[in-house]
């Protein structure tokens, strides 16, 4: 079934979490929907570290 990323983003927006978490989680959603592996996700998290918090 085609997962609607807009719906998932809107659910993330409603959460009471920090902004950097919202941004990073949305990026992870896109990575997951495009079929990225755990290793690719690790790379992504390591390279992004710190960037989303600003």
């Amino acid at each position, binding site marked *: *079934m085609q997962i609607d990323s807009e719906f998932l983003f809107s659910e993330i927006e409603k959460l009471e979490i920090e902004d950097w978490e919202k941004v990073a989680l949305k990026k992870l959603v896109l990575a997951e929907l495009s079929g990225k592996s755990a290793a690719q996700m690790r790379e992504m*998290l390591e390279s992004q570290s710190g960037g989303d918090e600003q």
Partner: protein
Amino acid sequence: MKLTRAEFMHFKILDAVNIQFDVAQTNIFFVNGFNGRGKTSFQDALYWCLYGRAPEDGVANRHALAKKTGGPLEVSAIFEFKLEDDDFESVEIRRTTEVTMEKGFQRTKNARLSILGRNPGESSFTQPVANEEQWIHRRFPDGLQQFFLFDGESLEKFFVNTTKERIGTAVREIAGVEAFEGIETKLGLVINEWRKQLAKGSQSGTAVSSEVKRQKYQRAAEDSRASIAAADRVIADLEKELAEIDLYFERFGNNAGLLQEETEIRRRISSLKAEIQGQKFEQHNRLLSEGIEFAVQRKIIEDVVREKEDAIRNDEYPPQFSENLMKKILELGRCVCGEQVPSGSEKHRVLEKLIHEHRDVDAIGQDLQKLSAYAEYWPSLSASTFHGFSEQSKTIAEKVGEMKELEGKLEDLQARLMGGDREEQQAKVERKKKLPYEISSAETERNKAVEQREWALVEVKSLEKSIEKLTKSSSANAKVSGFIARAEALNQAARLAHRAAVDSVRTNLEEAVDEEFKVIKTGAFKTQITDDFEVRTVASDGGNVKLSSGENMMKAYVFALALRKVIGFKFPLVIDTPFGRLDSENRKRLVDMITRLNSTKGTEHGNQVIFLMHDLEYTPQIKETFSPNKPVEMYLAYQKEEEVSQVHEGIDPAWQQADSWKGWKGK
């Protein structure tokens, strides 16, 4: 998405059939036919084409398969869909297979699925779709199939077949939790990798061994989670079985109660029989031990004396005693003079010889004379023995009376019990008694697994803290620790989002069900989808609202349609025997509901509905009610010689001979 064409070759009863659905004209299509004309074959073909699941009785037309020589029979089903906002304007989904008959069963090989696309302006389907199974799964999710492809005859069982687990799967699928779950799993793997790196980087043997331990507990927690899920499945299956039994008895009226009563009566009769038999045995022993054999012998003596007197009277002395009388004496197992003559003994043999060959009745008569002396003792036999005997006889008579009364009651009960398989019904009564214990035992197993998981997670947390202390020192480790902290925060956020998405879909579904169900049922109630996905109708105090059988069936339709609404799902609603066991009032409501489903946005955007109906269902009244929707009517006409059905437009002329259509003038 609309179904525009269905084509079958040698598929069950549908052979060389091509059905066009003109979706520019209407969204409502009826494929009608007497029972056994291929309505179910149509649904079977759709299941088979989309999911590759063949019906139990095979895919091939039996007549064509029997006639086929020199190789297998090719069977195919093609469904053409007009798409909306998709890769192509239309697609043609085709499944084919080769069938041979082996040992009475249809064997298939070389099954193939192909999907070809067509764009606007193109006249034929030429563009192949890659990953066909995946393409189908994304557009016709198997987990949602029961909400668009079902049998109205089993509407009563809708919330039994469509278990809480399946509703949960559907809700989770709609909520897209697959994405969040994927993130959670992958983040878990990444965090584990970082932790390993951290332990190794610390150069501390304790940190490394703690990490090994931590991972062991992590695995134990995962194993327990699998055990919890397995126990949940067992509990769901058992609850489903229990609900099915309840439904079964609901359908058969109060048979469960009657069967229970019947069992109790049978038990009482059987116990009375045993009591009567026991008392008779006791009575018999008592009488034997106290001399009743004399009474029996006396009866024989009386017969002997009577026969002797008759002989004297007729001047036939010595009398020729009847063979029957002699046999009686022998059967007593005692000598006529009180001596034991066991069957098969020498004396027994001699006596038999006397009777049968020599008929020395005079000698026997003398013995009998001696025996008659015992009869003199008869009156002196204990009066109390016979008082006790008659008292016991009275008790036996009472018990026999009670037994007869119960046997009469049993007959009445059996007359009241409905038909069906009595053994099956009895087995269900017994099963129903056992199920609560099995559910409770599965729940205990589940609780045990939950405890084990919690315990393992506590260990994991504690080890994480100690590893953190041991690995804090280097700056490289501080960086990795930072990654872990961020990833854990994101993992927690993914879990929250996961939960929020499910809750959101659940709330949307509750509202959508309520909106439609309020049209059908009046009163203060609301729909509640519980955490474990039970669809409840509750009153303001939270208690369950009792729904009639008709309301329950309508709730099934309402739920299936609400799900479409929430998900924006546009697969045609293909229902075999859609009116099932609905009464006339609910039939009207269903027509209204289907009308509402299509009237809001016009033919272009509405939901396509394909109803497969028989003559008792699609009556002139239903036809009249549906007429404002301008449905396209088709019928399946059977050709006996070829064992196939063909499709024609309109109403089957043969229906006018059927009771339900008599008097209809073909308006």
